[in-house]
């Protein structure tokens, strides 16, 4: 599915009146698959855009497979952390649909700038899920060549990557790579908490001024560690975009179909030269902020349960079952594959070698530094001085 273009979104050029909406649901929330697994044929966003998807059965099954795999690999990483094999883990549990939907909406030429939680997007980009685990295991700092994978390194400093994405998107436009169907688009992921950072708002300014081919994708998982959304904003986050002069839309982030449709539409607008937009994927962080966190200190069980009922995978499964797009064999096979891949991941994590001590001096500068050469040499000699001793 990553290669084709099955989902289609059409924009009604004459903006529809504000009150017009799709068949069901909250006019402020684009949804194409209800928590019960009912399909909505199409839905109209606040600016009159009509969102719909038109997947083949195989593609629907593919999305389900993605969701299950991504959740399973994430659970495996959580388990690895519990067993001391990772230093920390930031789980995506609950956010699979937002990530798979948006990740699959990317075209091969598109570039993504993740936070530290976009394991699902990474997976959809076709990237080996082992890649970020070096960071969380502490054997490296998670580095890879962003251009090789069209996927930037994880960014931990909240919001910083949104400016990088904006600059990159400016470069896309400067390269003349927008304005056509095969133009490039850029997506910047960030969280609800990040929306308060100066950097993120500067990115909004820049993207607007330079009409950058950029989609701001905010996963509003309702919390920034312990702080609920009300500590970041008093109005829905998607409305922030209007203040900077570009469209914003809130999508049901637990609905993989709507997440796909909305993102694909926004990316295509961007690649066609229509500039930036903001997507707020309304979702929920079902687990802890990271494995270091204890969410029972700041939120109540009933809230978590209410969101459990909106689970992104359960609704997709219900849909596939109801529509007879998939049968028990299929679900079993997917679970089997998920298990296989997670075992494989685990094996490879355990096999990750610790870095050489002196590797800490590598790659500080492309052109090196005499100071570091000296420190490396002294440290090597120092280490050698212990050789043969009990140290």
């Amino acid at each position: 599915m990553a290669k084709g273009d099955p989902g289609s979104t059409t924009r009604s050029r004459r903006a529809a009146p504000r009150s017009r909406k799709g068949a069901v649901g909250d006019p402020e929330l684009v949804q194409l698959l209800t928590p019960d697994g009912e399909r909505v044929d199409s839905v109209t966003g606040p600016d009159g855009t009509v969102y719909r998807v038109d997947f083949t059965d195989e593609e629907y099954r593919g999305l389900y497979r993605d969701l299950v795999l991504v959740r399973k690999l994430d659970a495996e990483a959580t388990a690895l952390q519990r067993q001391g094999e990772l230093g920390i883990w930031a789980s995506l549990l609950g956010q699979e649909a937002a990530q798979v939907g948006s990740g699959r909406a990317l075209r091969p030429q598109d570039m993504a700038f993740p936070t530290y939680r976009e394991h699902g997007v990474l997976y959809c980009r076709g990237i080996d899920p082992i890649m970020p685990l070096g960071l969380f295991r502490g054997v490296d700092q998670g580095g890879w060549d962003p251009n090789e994978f069209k996927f930037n390194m994880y960014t931990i400093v909240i919001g910083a990557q949104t400016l990088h994405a904006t600059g990159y998107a400016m470069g896309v436009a400067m390269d003349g790579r927008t304005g056509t169907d095969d133009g490039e688009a850029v997506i910047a992921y960030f969280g609800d908490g990040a929306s308060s950072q100066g950097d993120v708002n500067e990115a909004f300014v820049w993207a607007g001024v330079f009409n950058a081919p950029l989609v701001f994708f905010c996963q509003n998982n309702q919390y920034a560690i312990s702080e609920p959304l009300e500590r970041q904003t008093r109005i829905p986050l998607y409305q922030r975009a209007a203040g900077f002069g570009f469209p914003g839309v809130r999508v049901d982030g637990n609905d993989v179909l709507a997440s796909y449709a909305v993102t694909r539409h926004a990316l295509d607008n961007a690649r066609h030269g229509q500039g930036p937009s903001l997507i707020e994927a309304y979702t929920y962080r079902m687990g802890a902020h990271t494995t270091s966190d204890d969410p029972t200190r700041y939120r109540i069980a009933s809230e978590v349960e209410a969101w459990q009922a909106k689970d992104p995978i359960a609704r997709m499964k219900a849909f596939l079952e109801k529509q007879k797009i998939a049968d028990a064999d299929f679900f079993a096979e997917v679970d089997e594959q998920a298990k296989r891949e997670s075992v494989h991941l685990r094996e490879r994590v355990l096999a990750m070698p610790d870095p050489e001590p002196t590797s800490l001096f590598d790659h500080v500068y492309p052109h090196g530094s005499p100071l570091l050469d000296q420190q490396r040499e002294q440290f090597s000699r120092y280490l050698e001085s212990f050789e043969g001793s009990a140290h």
Partner: protein
Amino acid sequence: MATETLTIGKALNVGLRRALENDPKVVIMGEDVGKLGGVFRITDGLQKDFGDQRVIDTPLAESGIIGTAVGLAIRGYRPVCEIQFDGFVYPAYDQIVSQVAKMHYRSRGKLRIPMVIRIPFGGGIGAVEHHSESPEAYFSHTAGLKVVSCANPQDAYVMIQQAIASDDPVVFLEPKRRYWEKGPVDVDAPLADAYPLHAARVARPGTDATLLAYGPMVRTCLDAATAAAEDGRELEVIDLRTLSPLDLGVVYESVRRTGRAVVVHEAPSNVGLGAEIAARITEECFYSLEAPVLRVTGFDTPYPAARVEEEYLPDLDRVLDAVDRTFGW
């Protein structure tokens, strides 16, 4: 005298509680300081007891935390800002160096910004990037800021209260890897009688060489001194406590006796505190030095991946190796 055994983290927590009790103008603000009690639980229970107007969960933006705290200070409050981790103080750097540090000067003394900026700092906890930085040089080089670090529970308890009571803006560096270390704390002794905030102190007397450290490296140096003593070498350990202004009187006195000094910190060596201390010792004790002042520090690289941080961080062996080198000069 009510002495309790507390961890450094708990001592800070009790010290903050005391400050909130003693002065209604003290407010604590930062990310997750409320219900969660901070990611290190240093503010645990405080919002529950003092309410969310005294212990304020802020939006996620460090410049905003410090910038609004400046405004609160102008209004007459005494804000105590928590920066969640060392690596996240930089978005607030402009507000700190251009506003907090300069307000008193610009106003010709008419305005005071009695603010404390608490930062858990340093490495050694196996964290991912940006969670193990030692930014003290950036603040110590900035005129108008005072910078301190505590190294034991008693100092943690007292110094945080002194910093809050002080009208100077204080960057308060907490040795995060030592949060869980325990020690006795006299929780009743009056603050007025306490050892001054901006004073160094001999942590272990010795005669053969002087070790200088602050925050997390004080423990490392004390361990090194213990090990050295087994080999018959008596190292004096000085806990600097105040990083800006430095209090070097006791250091000069020590180095004039020992003739040898090693400064230890986690931060990179280049243009770090160690350089300043070495330069000043050399100026003041030129004829007493048997060897140049040596530095044992983090290397001049970004803080590395957790699995090599033990190599990066100064430890007992590297400290003693440097001491040896001063004897071999």
